[in-house]
């Protein structure tokens, strides 16, 4: 694939192609539905682009292969879906503490447990609150279209390198499985290994990648150092979309697939005269707190929509600090809400506003 003309691609394959074009040099993964097209595509095309594809014996192995390759200075990624991402949490905690860049894609499916293979947004907390043990965060980005997934994937490697921190792309089965028209970015050459990579000291100081700090004050300094980066992220990496938020008296907060379904319902509600708008966080961590507060400035009520029992709604409430009542509507288990259903909810919330 060399041309830049728009083409019809499945979400998972488009993401894989975007990663190859971003100069991804190594992919490690393990089969799980609904993201198998990513490893399948990588197995076929990444070696042709000069990279390495390896299927691990488990997600535990895959994330630790990522750890090793990232330490060696390689542009590296993995992908999985919810239960597999759960198995990667220990590795992600180590990678964050050791300050290594990598990209992790989670095509979320319904849970808990084995759950189902249908789309869900129930891994929000796991993605944005740390997920594994210890004090750390992932930079979490949530695309809503295949094109946005391509653009975010393409940008995510450099973001990971900028902060030396894992970036997670939080999609869902819907985004991974649907086909949409995409324009692919240009092919980028992978960079040379950074000066911290364990490629030999080259007359400089020894290069050490570590996540073990026995002394309390040293570990504390590490935590503070990592969190200084997160403060920096909160300044520079906040992303969101506003849709008819000016003068919105009913504000909907939704991300990913749910947000695009909400747009259809919002269009219909606006045609009926309901002053409703949408605020769509794209960066889930750092969460767009200030932007959401501004968007909700004239709102009488904020409705959070998710394909979960209510997770992002907590961050919406924290952002708004009690200024506006926040209500929630969610579908779970892989059930995708329809525009009609959301419209009904918009009516209910608008009619019952304080």
């Amino acid at each position, binding site marked *: 694939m060399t041309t830049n003309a728009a083409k019809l691609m499945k979400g998972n394959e488009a993401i894989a192609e975007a990663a190859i074009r971003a100069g991804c040099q190594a992919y490690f993964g393990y*089969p799980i539905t609904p993201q*198998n097209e990513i490893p399948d595509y990588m197995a076929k095309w990444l070696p042709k682009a000069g990279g390495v594809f390896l299927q691990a014996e*488990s997600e535990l192995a895959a994330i630790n292969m990522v750890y090793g390759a990232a330490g060696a200075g390689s542009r590296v990624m993995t992908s999985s879906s919810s239960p597999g991402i759960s198995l990667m949490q220990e590795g992600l905690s180590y990678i964050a503490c050791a300050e290594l860049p990598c990209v992790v894609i989670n095509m979320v499916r319904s849970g808990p447990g084995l759950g189902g293979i249908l789309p869900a947004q129930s891994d929000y907390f796991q993605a944005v609150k740390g997920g594994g043990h210890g004090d750390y965060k992932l930079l979490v980005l949530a695309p809503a279209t295949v094109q946005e997934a391509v653009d975010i994937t393409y940008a995510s490697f450099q973001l990971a390198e900028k902060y030396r921190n894992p970036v997670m792309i939080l999609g869902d089965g819907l985004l991974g499985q649907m086909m949409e028209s995409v324009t692919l970015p240009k092919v980028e050459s992978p960079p040379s290994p950074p000066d911290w990579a364990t490629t030999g000291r080259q007359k400089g100081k020894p290069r050490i990648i570590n996540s073990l700090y026995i002394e309390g004050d040293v570990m504390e300094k590490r935590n503070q150092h990592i969190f200084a980066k997160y403060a920096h992220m909160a300044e520079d990496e906040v992303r969101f979309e506003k849709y008819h938020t000016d003068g919105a008296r009913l504000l909907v907060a939704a991300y990913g697939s749910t947000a695009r379904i909400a747009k259809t319902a919002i269009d219909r509600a606006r045609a009926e005269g309901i002053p409703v708008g949408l605020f769509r966080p794209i960066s889930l961590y750092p969460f767009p707190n200030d932007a959401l507060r501004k968007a909700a400035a004239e709102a009488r009520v904020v409705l959070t929509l998710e394909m979960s029992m209510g997770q992002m709604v907590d961050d919406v409430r924290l952002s708004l600090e009690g200024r506006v009542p926040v209500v929630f509507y969610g579908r779970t288990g892989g059930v995708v809400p329809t525009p009609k259903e959301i419209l009904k909810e918009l009516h209910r919330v608008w009619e019952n506003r304080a």
Partner: protein
Amino acid sequence: MALPDLAKKPVRFIGGHRACAGCGFPITIKIILQAAENPVIVGCATGCMEVTSTIYPYTSWECSFIHSAFENVAATVSGIEAAYTSLKRQGRIDKDITFIAFGGDGGTYDIGLQALSGALERGHKMVYVCYDNQGYMNTGIQRSSATPRGANTTTSPAGKKVPGKQQYPKDLTAIVAAHGIPYAAQSSMSHWNDLYRKAKKAFAADGPAFLNVLSTCRLGWGTAPEDTVDVADGAVQSRLWPLYEIEKGKWKLSLKPRRHYPVEKWMSMQGRFRHLFNPQKNETFIEEIQSQVDAKWEELVRRCSAET
């Protein structure tokens, strides 16, 4: 045991499941469960078997059934067996119960190997059955460490330079036998009598027992539904999948194929090896596989004759 007698045994894995026409595992499970005399508790790892036979509110299992994640069925059944042993010691249960863990090759050779090894070492009285269909078939045909060299899968794609999977499969039965458990065996769904007999022995073993059963996947192997049994038989006849058992440390061949049956013949029956024959035959590669199969067979025969 004659076939009509087997037909009289109660069936604990019943029809109505959603496995593909020509799938090998329902045959495998049915025969194994028919060999069980006691009430049975089954643990099942994630995979085709669990997905197609337990879609709520339906089930094909005429016994107690618990599902686990992909990597831990041996641990889940360890827990059940440990609880049972404790309850029995306390006098709160008196029944004899048989515990079976089922996993595919992905859940056994790869992600579940650690849990399996732990269970074998601790010595839980359970029968672990690996239905080996040589790949991750439930997720759309990816390679596993049981996939034969040369097979085309989505993650070991056959191309101009690389003719499918590059590695030979892991010898899991030998790995399991190295734990020194009372009984381990390799069987195939094509040999019902061998499978039934080995299941009986496994259930009677005083400690952990293990069965590694070759089970055709017609989608992943690229075979016709009606050829399921013949293809599994071809693996046995070609000596790629020998039938043998290790009883209290003694290795014993269960079947010595009489005629020479080249691995090539077995491979040519399956779509996943098509690239080795078309557009032209990859002689050197096929010969290399044949010599590896011969060497493994000779090693097995040596092991078996040394023990007798």
